[in-house]
């Protein structure tokens, strides 16, 4: 089966002040798959995804070299629009950060920025996004309450729904389940498995079991270098690098 490449990363080198965080990484992320980026802290996996949505622009003293293309279009040269890019590439952060407003207004935030003001359309988007994030049944009767009143697991699904409301092509999740209980984690994982039909998903995680459970492809990073990248099944059963094997077996990390 030949798969379409959604994100092509070539010889990507990132330096913070004088620290080289990524040392020439080349990866293809395939369309409508879940791709896992794993590795111990300091491996550069989070920096890598913050380039794909250009959230890295909010850090100081960063130097980026190399090439990142989405659907063949470079996102590193000046010819693209970051606002437009972040509509196409959604982000879910490690810690759920609801905006201090109601559940409904959290979801409607992105669509409103796009200029969608029609009530019926907004209602539809809110309901649809919450359903896709497996949160609708729990909150449908109290959309007007503050999002800060939800539990941590619900807040994280709210953040996923909020991202979905922009109808992104790509979603980046940076250790989205690090603070969640197993049941909330399972709900997020179920949601992601459904979503990959339409969306390309990159999941950064330290949890190798989670990567093994739900990703199609997995990449192992270590100290800014891509050690191994393969289909998840292959990588977890017969890794070709010793380092990968040690990491998967929990010998370091």
């Amino acid at each position, binding site marked *: 089966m030949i798969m379409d490449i959604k994100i092509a990363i070539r010889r990507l080198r990132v330096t913070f002040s004088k620290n080289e965080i990524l040392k020439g990484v080349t990866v293809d992320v395939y369309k409508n798959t879940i791709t896992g980026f794993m590795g111990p802290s300091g491996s550069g996996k989070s920096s890598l995804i913050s380039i794909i*949505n250009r*959230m890295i622009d*909010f850090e100081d003293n960063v130097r980026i070299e190399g090439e990142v293309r989405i659907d063949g279009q470079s996102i590193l040269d000046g010819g693209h629009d970051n*606002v*437009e890019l*972040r*509509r196409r590439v*959604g*982000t879910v*952060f490690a*810690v759920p*950060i609801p*905006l*201090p*407003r109601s559940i409904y207004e959290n979801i409607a*935030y*992105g669509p409103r*920025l*796009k200029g969608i003001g029609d009530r019926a359309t907004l209602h539809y988007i809110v309901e649809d996004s919450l359903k896709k994030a497996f949160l609708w049944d729990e909150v449908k009767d109290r959309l007007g309450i*503050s999002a*800060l009143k939800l539990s941590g697991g619900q807040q994280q699904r709210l*953040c996923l729904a*909020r*991202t979905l409301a*922009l109808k992104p092509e790509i979603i980046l999740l940076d250790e989205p389940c690090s603070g969640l209980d197993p049941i909330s984690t399972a709900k997020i994982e179920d949601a992601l498995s459904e979503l990959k039909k339409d969306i390309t998903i990159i999941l950064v995680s330290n949890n190798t079991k989670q990567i093994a459970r739900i990703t199609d492809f997995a990449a192992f990073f270590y100290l800014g270098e891509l050690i191994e990248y393969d289909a998840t099944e292959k990588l977890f059963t017969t890794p070709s690098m010793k380092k990968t094997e040690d990491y998967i077996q929990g010998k370091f990390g």
Partner: protein
Amino acid sequence: MRINPRFTNKLVHIGLNLQAFFTVGILVIIVAIICFKGFPYVNFEFIFAYPQDMGRIGGIFPSIAGTIFLVLLSILLATPLGVGTAIFLTEYTKESVFTKIIRFGVESLAGIPSILYGLFGFIFFVIKLKMGWSLLAGVLTITIMILPTIIRTSEEAIKAVPRNLRIVSYSLSATKWETVTKVVLPSAIPGILTGIMLSVGRAVGETAAVIFTMGSSLRLPTSLFDSGRTMAVHFYILAREGISMEKAYGTALVLVVSILLINILAYYLMNKAISRYS
């Protein structure tokens, strides 16, 4: 010898209670005296009638109106300017020598005695720009006087908004301006409102800077170029020149009650803002 910690604890507890009681007590005494002395003279006529014979008889309506005009216009002018400066300093510039100079300037301005603002307003607006003693000169002077407070408090309030909220807003495809107006400012409203309230208090109670710039005409100002007086100025002149202590206390009572009402209104608005955005 070691003092028994439980004894110390008791002592501190009593001490702190006394201090709090003392602070509130002084306030209560001041308000009580003003109420007691002023209450007999405040009635419908006092509030809505014009003063006669320098204020010995009649009411204080023009000075109530003068106060409202001066304070309202100054706040309306100073708030967008001050909040805008605060947004610029916190969101649109990086820390540099330039921002340090602006901040130093703002802080120095906050420490200047109001009489100097009055003098400046008199020389610049009243004489140089030929505004004469007028509501306009008063408004401009008071605006300059309260700007530092609004800038500083707004800046602190904006800085206190967590960086995470901004990051989330950007990640949802907001521009900087959208992030500032839709996320940062709503969260900072309670703090900004506090600064505005402090400024209202300063403007309502100001005498020196007002006398120098707005003058002390007893007439009702009907245009920006009319002179007029505020309640504080009216009170000052009545008391200082021994015109009528009774009317002075009556004016003081109206002044205190209006400040109280403004504060209650502000707290109400603040709670509404907080409950909406949390």
